[in-house]
């Protein structure tokens, strides 16, 4: 019988931070690292959780939300950052707040070589488009990093992303799974 993994509590802290920031719309392409946070928002009747077919839909959705006076957050995996590049023109040139929480792949402990190119390019791609990037690599630093990015985004009206490192999330190993 497998050990029961200890459940991380940082997603609950991040949920509180985002509620305090008055987030009402959550756009997401799911990632395992975001699953606990997604469940918290899905149980929250004040928040609309929108499953996207591709991450750039969420950039446009949250721009529309801002025009209508609502704040939101985009939850995505690092591979999805690549899908957002041109769409980031919108919040950058309109000076709109955008908060992106990016769970990393192609990072610490990665086993799948196909995750490496976009994972290693994530920060550079965001910064090339003018997004302010901060990063958390330890569980106890995630909520405060998200809080700082939310203040930056919503008080200075510009895009900010938090990269949540694979060290926080735990690396998958499909080779081990394949042997079971």
């Amino acid at each position, binding site marked *: 019988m497998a050990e029961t993994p200890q459940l991380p509590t940082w997603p609950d802290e991040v949920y509180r931070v985002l509620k305090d920031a008055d987030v009402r719309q959550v756009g997401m392409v799911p990632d395992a690292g975001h699953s606990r946070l997604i469940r918290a928002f899905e149980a929250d009747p004040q928040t609309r959780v929108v499953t996207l077919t591709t991450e*750039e839909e969420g950039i*446009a959705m949250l721009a*529309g939300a*801002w025009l209508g*006076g*609502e704040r939101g957050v985009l939850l995505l995996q690092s591979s999805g950052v690549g899908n957002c590049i041109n769409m980031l023109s919108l919040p950058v040139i*309109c000076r709109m707040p955008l908060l992106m929480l990016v769970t990393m792949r192609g990072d610490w402990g990665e086993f799948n070589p196909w995750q490496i190119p976009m994972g290693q390019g994530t920060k550079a791609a965001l910064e090339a488009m003018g997004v302010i990037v901060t990063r958390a690599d330890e569980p106890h630093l995630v909520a405060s990093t998200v809080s700082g990015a939310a203040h930056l985004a919503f008080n200075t009206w510009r895009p900010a992303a938090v990269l949540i490192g694979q060290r926080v999330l735990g690396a998958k190993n499909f080779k081990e799974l394949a042997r079971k």
Partner: protein
Amino acid sequence: MNVPNALLHRREVVTELLRDRGDLLVIAGLGAPNWDISAAGDHPNNFPLWGAMGAAAMMGFGLAAAQPKRRVLVITGDGEMLMSLGALATIAVEKPSNLTIAVLDNERFGETGMQKTHTAAGVDLAGMAAAAGFRTSRIVRTMAEVSELRDLAHHGDGPVFAQVKVNPEALTFVLPPADGVILTTRFRQAVLGDNALYN
């Protein structure tokens, strides 16, 4: 103008869609739809996109979700809609009752030399929206049908999708402000009041 099958003129279509617009909120996709809504009269409740191709439908959705008591009309082109077909699935799942998407379908990429788009080969955008689950989806070919669409956009039960077949005519550009901060701020001030200026 009684020629059967004559294609509609896009500026006449947009003028009719925006007739007695009241507090209707309008997002326009980049290129000709931007110039079209501006030709009908620049307005603080207009958000004309100058870039971010593929943004229009989802931007309209985010706005409609944030402002459920207002009506939101997205006017965009066939090329711009084709770039974000997945948005039709996302919006159909969310079912915003106050959102209408009107695609002015000239079957061309108008800004880049009038190259044919996929709709020129028969790709049925209205069929795709219907299959995704839009409450109403139709192809519009006459001004009488445009008037029905106008009423749906203003009062109907959405989400509504329409593929409006228009003439691939190249018209004089009518330009709204180009600065994104000006467009954003004036729109937010119009919708949210002066509070929008204070964060």
